[in-house]
């Protein structure tokens, strides 16, 4: 884990509120792996105060570039949206536990919305997994994924691209073909993926999200329900990627 001042190579809007940020890194990139995140200070002053955890979308070691895909949804990410080439960011990382790369197992990767971000580096490292992706309406970044996929399943909620509905529907039909499933997306989707995989005895890894403070395990705010009743897991250091059997979902996500 390093703290590095990284300069911005590019920051482009790829869809409504979705941006692709490319940063130049010398030290962080050397340790970066799929599923880990960077903890980025959006402002040099006190507002917003905290760093923002953004998952690593792609790490190009040859160029020394890290690609981040993020959604503008609050004060911090709005400031990220204003970054221009040549600006600098105070970044800590890579942090957290990433995806175990199980190359020998037939894998399915499922992502929903901005949850696709940490899956690209993963897909590049797997042996052509089947990829399932869902979006509300506007579709982004799928070409990057198609390159690394065996089969590709695209869904939108409004049916404007791909099939109408959710990618979990297709994954449920094909679940018996897989030995491992990797997922990142809304909690409702993750909760369904967990249930599907566990019912069918398929190994499953979920990338979780929770409001975060320090990012290094000291502040205990990013607690997530653990399958062990007596304690919570820390998303920042025990995760963000968990074996599905390690975590539990609150009833409020079952809606």
């Amino acid at each position, binding site marked *: *884990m390093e*703290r590095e001042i990284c300069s911005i190579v590019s920051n482009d809007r790829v869809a409504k509120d979705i941006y692709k940020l490319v940063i130049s890194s010398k030290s962080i990139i050397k340790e970066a792996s799929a599923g880990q995140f960077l903890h980025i*200070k959006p402002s040099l002053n*006190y*507002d*917003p*105060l*905290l*760093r923002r955890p953004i998952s690593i979308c792609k790490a190009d070691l040859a160029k020394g570039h890290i690609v981040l895909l993020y959604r503008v949804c609050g*004060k911090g990410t709005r400031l990220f949206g204003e970054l221009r080439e040549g600006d600098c960011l105070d970044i*800590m990382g890579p942090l957290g536990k990433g995806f175990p790369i199980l190359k020998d197992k037939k894998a399915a990767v499922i992502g929903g919305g901005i949850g696709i971000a940490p899956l690209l580096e993963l897909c590049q490292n797997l042996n052509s997994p089947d990829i399932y992706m869902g979006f509300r309406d506007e579709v982004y970044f799928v070409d990057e994924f198609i390159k690394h996929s065996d089969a590709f399943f695209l869904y939108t909620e409004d049916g404007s691209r791909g099939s109408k509905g959710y990618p979990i529907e297709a994954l449920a039909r094909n679940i018996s073909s897989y030995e491992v499933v990797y997922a990142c997306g809304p909690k409702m989707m993750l909760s369904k993926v967990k249930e599907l995989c566990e019912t069918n005895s398929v190994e499953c890894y979920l990338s979780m999200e*929770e*409001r*975060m*403070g*320090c990012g*290094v*395990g*000291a*502040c*205990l*705010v*990013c*607690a*997530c329900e653990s399958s062990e009743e*007596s*304690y*919570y897991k820390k998303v920042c*250091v025990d995760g963000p990627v968990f074996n599905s059997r390690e975590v539990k979902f609150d009833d409020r996500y079952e809606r």
Partner: protein
Amino acid sequence: MIDMSVDIGGLRLKNPVLVSSGTFGFGREYSKFYDLNSLGGIAVKGITLKPRKGNKPPRIAETAAGILNSVGLENPGLYGFMEKELPFLKRYKVPIIANISGNTVEEYSIMAQELYNSVDAIELNVSCPNVREGGIAFGTKPELIYQVTNAVKKRIGIPLIVKLSPNVTDISEMALVAEGAGADCISLINTMIGMKIDIENKRPYFDNVVAGLSGPAVKPVALRMVWQAAEKVNIPIIGMGGISTWRDAIEFIMAGAAAISIGTANFYNPYAPIEVLDGIRNYMEYSGLNRIEEIKINRGVKNYE
């Protein structure tokens, strides 16, 4: 030659920069950033007699220049701390301050007694706003501060620090009570009680309804309280509350703090304690001061009343 060492009620620190309980875990996390021996001392995450799972998420909300937290004293319990966490910290030479929280006076006493041979000071947490029993219930009633301080002081042979709550009408009254009951030092402030409402779902954002506010937003209040406490007590004060830079630290020392502690700043700048320490040293060098006690202002000028 600059001597940065300070005394906090019988415990000599090699410099006045501490890190606050609840913002530094048990030291492991930040040991990856710098040598923990650089610090004046470490107040570890608050511990309770039995392990606590802590509050249900969400546990944090960002506010303007601050944060609200509702962690609820998640910790491995007294014995979990002594067996699993303390050995790591003991590898360092840095003074360890055990922060303890109890539901009853008896619980505080048992914990202090179990700990005092293994740590350098005990900090009584009588000011946690995030748990239903104990915590702040002790810190807002003078007679309870007296009872718990007095009971613990009798059982231990190491410095006793009482961490005061800012959620009181008169901080100096609480400071005086702690001093009268035998506290060797007081630390202030703990978090201020705040809240947030989830307007979409029309309910309080936190399960526990209220939460503790910290960060730069509370600094002026903390500074005022350190000043007021310093007016009344003779025991040393550890000043904290939104300290992020060396300038903040100098303000607290000028207000009457013998030492200062970095809390929330650790979350967004892991190097904050080291930067503050370097800043104080540079300030002293620049100002021609040789000891921390020489950082003073004229207390006779008082416009605050």
